[in-house]
């Protein structure tokens, strides 16, 4: 085998290995979700979806085992109610994905919260002061 052929073969093996690892790694770790605008406009009540967006600053409240907060995407906000304790990782101004369904009053009843740890450098844009 010439050096050129062997290099091509080696490259092929590495690429195939990476592709295999990527494909295997994405199993069960890829979460699809919808934004508040999509959920507010088009979801019928009690249809189970995942909702993702920013936990609106100042909206997180915990009262007697019930956690309420709003998830927003800059245009629409949806009120979320989660029975039972939240992971301590959920924080205002950061991204979160919740799983559940809208009830008849338009409140999202969530039973699973997946919080993403946001970027420490992204300024919390309270009051929409980002004028750019």
């Amino acid at each position, binding site marked *: 085998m*010439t*050096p*050129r052929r062997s*290099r091509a073969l*080696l490259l092929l093996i*590495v690429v195939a*290995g*990476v592709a295999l*690892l*990527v494909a*295997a*790694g*994405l199993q*069960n*770790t*890829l*979460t*699809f*979700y*919808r*934004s508040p605008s999509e959920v507010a406009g088009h979801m019928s009540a009690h249809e189970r979806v995942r909702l*993702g*967006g*920013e936990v609106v*600053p*100042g909206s*997180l409240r*915990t009262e007697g085992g019930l956690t309420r907060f709003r998830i927003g*995407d*800059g*245009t629409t906000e949806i009120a979320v109610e989660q029975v039972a*304790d939240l992971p*301590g*990782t959920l*924080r*205002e*101004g950061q*991204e979160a*994905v919740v799983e559940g369904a809208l009830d008849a009053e338009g409140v999202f009843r969530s039973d699973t919260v*997946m919080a*993403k*740890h*946001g*970027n*420490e*450098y*992204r*300024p*919390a844009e*309270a*009051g929409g*002061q*980002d*004028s*750019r």
Partner: protein
Amino acid sequence: MTGQIGGIVLGAGLVAAVATALLWSRVALLGVSARPARAATWATLAMAVLACAVLEVALVGHDFSIRYVAENGGRDVPLYYTVTSLWAALDGSLLLWLLVLAGCAVVVGGRRPERSGPLQPYAMAVIGVVAVFFFALTYFAANPFTAVSPVPADGPGPNPLLREHPAMGVHPPLLYAGYIGLVVPFAYGVAALLAGRTDRLSVTVVRRWTLVSWVLLTGGITLGAWWSYAVLGWGGYWAWDPVENASLLPWLTATALLHTLLAGRRTPALRSWTIALACSSFLLVLVGTFLTRSGAVASVHAFTASPLGPMLLGFVLLSVAVVLGLLVSRSGTAAAANPSPLLARESVMLGNAVLMVAVAAIVLTGTLFPLLVQAVQGHRAAVGPGYFNRAAVPVALVVLLLMGLAPLLRPGRAADLRDLRVPAFAGLAVAAVIGMLSRPGVLALAAFALGAYVLTGLAQSLVRRRGDLRRWGWMTAHAGIAVVAVGVAASSAYTVSSERQLRAGESITVGGVTARLETVDRLGAANGMRVRVRLALGGDAGGTSEPQLRYYPARDLTVSVPAIRSGVTGDVYATVLGAAPDGTGATVRLAVNPLVWLVWLGGGMTALGALTAAVRAPSRRRSPSPSPETPVPVGAA
């Protein structure tokens, strides 16, 4: 008034950058004197310095008529954090970016050609083009000097998370300097392609700049991890967040480049690969900047809301296309490689470089995947940390396995694997003992074993060679990586945590540590309110722990400040998640994180080791060459 001056300075900087790019192109193509080009480079730096100075003056002088100050300044902010506010938000940090970039240009352009290699004018033209783009980006898309009307009386201050710790003054500039230093290898790589002289890549210059950037990046990433742990208070130090990945990606390719430069000295066949690596680190910096600064990851609305995102994306795509096109058209028929044994230094280092690029590819895929899914299918998607742990970590462990061979490697000869007996035994023994005592999981167990194996191998080599000083740099860096691996494995496998609503006198127990809630104090302060929870620690630890919740009304943001008590075996990490309105109780999260300090120690060792190598670099050359500063073309023995 100050705002107008700032705007004019930025505009002048843009003009100077254009002049720099054009004049250096003239030097490259026509071979005329470089004196005017140097003057233009200096002028660019002067404008960048002035722009930063004007914004600092406005920040310190609370000139709220300037948009950046109105958004990030505040009268109650201490002077130190007012000064560091320059890089607390995007627009200001772009000025810092310009400053470092112009500084790099002056250093590279100011050197005599015989010190900077024959490709210096081409490389300077490339740096000039990059400077033009970033000046244009700042001037047109993110100008911090635009006027605000009406002028507010006070500003909200920087993001509260950025005024919790003095490390804010060090971490971002360190990381920026590391990112931008990589523009030099990029410029020389593109220059070699542009000039059609891939054989004239100045290994000395590229290696020195890559090494210095690598030291800064390593320090910056370690500080960032520590920051995430000690200030952000979510309990960990690495979350595979796009911002973190953006700093890891160029680090991985720069590591691969450093090793390829060493391995590639004897192998002309590696020219294209070396140049591709030299270019890729800065391209990944640009990709990372686009990912984290355009808001594309957070939401599509943020992306299109400002011209910044499209401009950055355009520049990233253009740069990638230019580099790829040049690589394809200019990579001539590579000469046949000198066959070297499979376990010779060249082959192992090259193999490990390929694996590091593979890790980078996996991390990049996971980071970009949500964007691709949204662009193609319209669905929103998130890739969890599980992906990175499953796909990237195993390859990283193989990298550790190959790294353990380093002390045995000889140029051009196969390594003697018998020397591996002691390290291999140490690794297996550690795995056996830990595996019998606990169940940390396969990946963590492998990391412990590999850490022990790498460290034993280094120690064995140290004893045999009685501390050959030339080897200190890379050996310390390698030991640091192994220490980080052990620290990460221990803290991810053995961390225990729990959270509870506590009333005064009640307690929570985690991993042998008991915390009893003593008092909940509400303290009013001028710039907000804070809740201080006093916990009495029992069990293995002792004393008290006082985590806090701080509320910043100007940003409507609550920050949880963790209280960390560090010991040799690990940290007791307490955070307040919420407090009862009547002040009688609080929700507390208590965690015991073993051996986290190994991560900071290892990161520090790695940066320090590489720094030693960078300082010693010129005198390290063993091959006889006319002068240490003469550029050694890739492929010259």
